């Protein structure tokens, strides 16, 4: 007989961190939209640290200096319906509304997407383009990691074995910043991405002065496209779109897999990035 899985639903973050420190091998579970998939075919976890609706880590609050703090436990429904996210950090709102369908959006959390760190995690390019910082906590204290340094490889992150993800901090965007997000999958709703991307493009006096372009599903982790970001600087919109298209060639090395082919991803990514610039309004 297999021993029963231990289960703890902590009352607050302090208790959760104590359990995490004592039982680093336990599964950290929130909505279960990733970890529970095909659960009956998976190895039974030794223990479950249940963070679903953990008090104090699910709220969306205004941060210092006009930024926004999204608790790790916030669901896609909550993020997708938040007027502040939709207004000022729209790529994250748009990603939230296209992650799965209602059933997944009701359970999936931002913290789960960040922690699982799948190359096809839909919110991840948005976090990258929005220059988010990830706040983590442990019994040792708290720290913040720029999202650009968060992913360390295929499904690996900067999270230590005793840490939990607490929040994502979204800084305010400079005046004149245009935002874009686009996901391409097999159908419009509830599909796993073939390519998705987010952009934050600053335009001053008609020319692009700064750009953060992030793509997902084209590498082992979400990536910024430095070649494009450099190529468009100082260009007007139409010229920026052309320069972006040219800079995309050879900039990514996507893979062939069950969801798409490398050449399709290459072409779609190129079109998508070019349209980020030509579509700025």
């Amino acid at each position, binding site marked *: 007989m297999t021993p029963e899985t231990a289960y703890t639903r902590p009352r607050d973050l302090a208790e959760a961190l104590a359990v995490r420190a004592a039982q680093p091998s336990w599964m950290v579970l929130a909505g279960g939209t990733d970890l529970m998939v095909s659960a009956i075919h998976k190895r039974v976890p030794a223990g479950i640290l249940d963070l679903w609706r953990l008090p104090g880590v699910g709220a969306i609050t205004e941060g210092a200096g006009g930024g926004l703090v999204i608790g790790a436990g916030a669901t896609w429904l909550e993020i997708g319906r938040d007027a502040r996210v939709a207004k000022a950090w729209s790529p994250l709102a748009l990603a939230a509304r296209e992650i799965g*369908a209602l059933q997944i959006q009701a359970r999936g959390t931002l913290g789960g997407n960040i922690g699982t760190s799948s190359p096809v995690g839909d919110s991840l390019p948005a976090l990258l383009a929005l220059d988010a910082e990830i706040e983590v906590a442990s019994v040792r204290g708290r720290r913040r990691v720029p999202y650009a340094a968060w992913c360390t490889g295929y499904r690996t992150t900067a999270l230590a074995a005793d840490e939990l993800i607490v929040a994502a901090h979204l800084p305010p965007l400079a005046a004149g910043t245009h935002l874009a997000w686009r996901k391409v999958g097999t159908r419009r709703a509830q599909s796993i991405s073939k390519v998705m991307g987010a952009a934050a493009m600053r335009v001053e006096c008609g020319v692009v002065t700064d750009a953060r372009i992030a793509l997902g599903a084209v590498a082992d982790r979400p990536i910024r496209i430095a070649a494009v970001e450099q190529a468009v600087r100082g260009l007007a919109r139409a010229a920026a779109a052309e320069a972006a298209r040219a800079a995309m060639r050879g900039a990514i090395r996507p893979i062939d897999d069950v969801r798409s082919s490398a050449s399709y991803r290459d072409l779609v990514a190129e079109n998508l990035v070019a349209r980020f610039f030509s579509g700025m309004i």
Partner: protein
Amino acid sequence: MKIELEVNGQPRTAEVSPWARLLDVLREDLRLTGTKEGCGEGECGACSVLLDGEVVNACIVAAGQCHGRRVVTVEGLARGEVLHAVQRALVACGGAQCGICTPGIAVCAAHVIDRKLLAGKPVAEARAAVRELLAGNICRCTGYQLIVDAVLVAVDEVGDS
């Protein structure tokens, strides 16, 4: 572990592994077999139930997480002998073929109607909106047309959604 939860308005208890699926707790332990298993991967929506008022896939909810929560299954949509408006509409419109997806469709569509998720949508966009809201419920008989018809009929009947 022993879990206590409210199912269709009734307090229930079950002795389960915390890693068990809510789907199996409902079907095997509580003998509520209206909820169906389709894919077991959270993709198809056949096992849709309401958990604390939100529509979820019961195949990817861990039983331990359901202690102290409220669940509504397809068995809980009717009021006594009176079917939910969307159940009546599914019958009237022929919005079912093999039937495996139907309980999940009924639960999700009832949620869409009861929570007025179509409120403010112009009539011209309502059909597309229903398709998007039901995107997590896959009908492999591909009988979507009549299912969407049924939801729109129910919306009309209930009004203001």
